[in-house]
């Protein structure tokens, strides 16, 4: 079944623009230190860094879960602090821990999310049918999310994100726990969306995934951006090193 994707008001400019944002915890620990980067339309951007580098903090600031101490974030041209609700309509977010709404059945969660985004009945049914089949979760829709495995929870959260067909997908470690088929399908979804001029920003530890999928990468460590650009350009700088060695070299502070 082919899904008809409708345009959702993509303005054609920079999808995500981050300007000098900083986040400090408990007034002492600087988790994100004055970083800036952009996500352009039609691109997949991999956000890469070791544990505790500041990836989740950055994604949480972009999505409004955290408020930055300084700097500005624009989503499809909308300032996240000035018009938070309109900016949140532009993206769909899958957090690193999909342990939310555990008491709801899968179908109830999808209906809830669809209503939050004001999706009409026909489109709602069409998208739920398409994505639940694609990610092979049709048989679990009548069960509570609490009874799902980690991978199944991840899938239902991903579908909840795709149901409103956002201009930007923001995914925190989206492939963790997914089976090979679903992982492949999710990657295909990500690629297909960029073909339609939409964007994907996702964090990952898996360098091979970034290599195969990303148009651009942003490497972060200790709250500071160490590299942004294409992976090819980075590899060209270190021709004798493997991908893993390059990563270790770049994140060595």
């Amino acid at each position: 079944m082919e899904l008809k994707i409708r345009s959702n008001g993509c303005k054609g400019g920079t999808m995500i623009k981050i300007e000098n944002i900083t986040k400090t915890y408990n007034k002492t620990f600087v988790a994100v230190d004055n970083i800036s980067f952009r996500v352009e339309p039609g691109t997949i951007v991999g956000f890469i860094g070791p544990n505790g580098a500041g990836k989740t903090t950055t994604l949480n600031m972009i999505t409004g879960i955290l408020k930055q101490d300084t700097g500005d974030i624009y989503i499809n041209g909308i300032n996240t602090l000035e018009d938070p609700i309109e900016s949140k309509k532009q993206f769909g977010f899958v957090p690193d821990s999909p342990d939310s709404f555990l008491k709801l059945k899968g179908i109830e969660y999808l209906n809830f999310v669809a209503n939050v985004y004001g999706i009409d009945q026909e489109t709602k049914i069409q998208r739920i049918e398409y994505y639940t089949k694609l990610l092979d979760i049709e048989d679990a829709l009548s069960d509570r999310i609490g009874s799902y495995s980690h991978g199944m929870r991840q899938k239902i959260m991903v579908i909840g994100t795709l149901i409103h067909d956002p201009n930007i997908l923001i995914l925190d470690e989206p492939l963790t726990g997914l089976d090979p088929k679903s992982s492949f399908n999710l990657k295909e979804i990500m690629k297909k969306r960029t073909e339609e001029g939409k964007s994907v920003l996702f964090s990952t530890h898996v360098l091979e995934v970034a290599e195969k999928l990303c148009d651009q990468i942003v490497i972060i460590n200790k709250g500071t951006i160490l590299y942004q650009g294409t992976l090819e350009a980075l590899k060209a700088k270190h021709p004798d090193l493997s991908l893993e060695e390059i990563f270790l070299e770049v994140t060595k502070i």
Partner: protein
Amino acid sequence: MKRFFSLVKINLKTASDDFSQNLNFKKSDTKLKLIGKKLLVGFLIIYLLGIIAIPSSYLIDSFIKINQTNLLIHLLFLITPVVTLYFSILSTPGVFYFSKDIQNYLAMPFRSWEIIGAKFVTAYIHSLIGLGFMILPGIVIFMIKVHPDILFILLTFLSLLIVPIIPLAVSILIVVILMRFIPFFKNKDLFMYLTFGLVFIPIFFIGISSGAASSDPEKIEGLMNAIMNMDNTAYQYFDLFFPTSKYLSQGIIQTRLLPILAIFVISLTTLFVILYITESFYFEGVLSITESSSKKKRLNRTKRDAYLTNDSKIINFLKIDIKNILRTPAFVINYFSPIFIIPIVGIVPILITDMPDNLGNIINEVSYHFHELFYAVSTIDHIQIALSIGFALGFLISNFESSSNTAISREGKQMKRFLSMPLSLTDLIKAKALLSILISSFLPLLIIIAATIILKPRIITVIMFGIGTILGILVVVLTGILVDVYSPSLSWDTEQQAIKGNFKQVLVVLPFMFVPVLLILIATTFESWITLMLVSIGSILLITLLYRQIMKLAKTKLVETVQNLES
């Protein structure tokens, strides 16, 4: 033994961490803020102890007057094991089955008896702390007023250490057998619902039947003689549910150590036998525990589409909130049990004992007073009375349930997810307020329907009573929500912690306990219903202020609190 005590220590530490988390002591708090919070908690503890101590003091005085202080000790041992059994059946599954530590312990080199033994000791210490909180104020007052000798005091404390052992062991036996042999009990939610029913109903009927046992003519005569003679022997005419408690009680009263030591040995033996029997069953059962079951059954098109409804923002939130509550036993028990328990406790004893006569008499009595009150006064007074009584009823009943003062807390860390969605937390709160109003309205609505059928009041009486009730409910619900929006407890691992450890509930109930007293004082001072009506109308002003403040906090402080919530 070192490993055994380490396990006990870890279990206790986890529980105390949960407790301090609920007290909202944060590492980031300034020294002054921390002192303030500690003072507040100290005040609340003293206040709660006071609530227990004041009636205990009156009770002890009245028993001293009739020289039946031994009966107090006997009643203490009547109540303590039943209370322990009640709470331990509810808490045992959490400690033994649904705590998330068991998988880790099983992977470590612990002996099976060390795990089960450590869990028992943890549950035992929790029971002692709970019991101590409930009965210590009364015991201290008893010691001060009755001046028993030192041996009496020592034996009392020794017996109180012994008394929870058997009820706890019995609850473990019941729970382990249920979990091992009845597969559907392995679902956490289902187990909580069923055990609540299994525990509450028998305990309630034990209460009723103990009343019936005391109607034995010989016992009543003996009891009356003992009271008349003031010989401190009335305790002999009360049976105790646990036979061991009887010997403990007698050991204290007669200051004899031997029966107490004997019961100690019997209790320990019973415990070891039960733990020995249940050990293998426990480990067979605990490994197949599930939080909730799945059917893996594909929905057909019709059923699937029935789930997919287009709802407004508030109805959308309301629906997921109702589902969250109904599918969480801890919420259902705390939010709805007062609604069911109040009518049962109020009506069942009337129905059991000489039903037609009693019920008929009560209806006649209420009807007489109702018509005397309403038809002897002017219409304006009539309206005022209906409004004021409705207000007091709504006020009282909505204080019994805690859905409003845990409205935000029950969402837990999930609140973070709402922040990434294009929605306003004000809509979420409106839906929660609506839900709390609906829950609180259920019992008053039943009362209004029953009163309308039985008393046949004028329509204006029903309308004014209804308006008064809604006003009373709104004041309580909005105050509860305001407190929770201001400082929600969102960092919890089990839903029970969101409710039980939420000290702020007391903050809501605390000032409200004085409102009925205040109303009576105003009424008796001014001797006019108009004052009470002014109170009701004043509540509209209060409701408006509360609503505005909640909406303001939802956009500012609540968002900040959720943003600062640790993952």
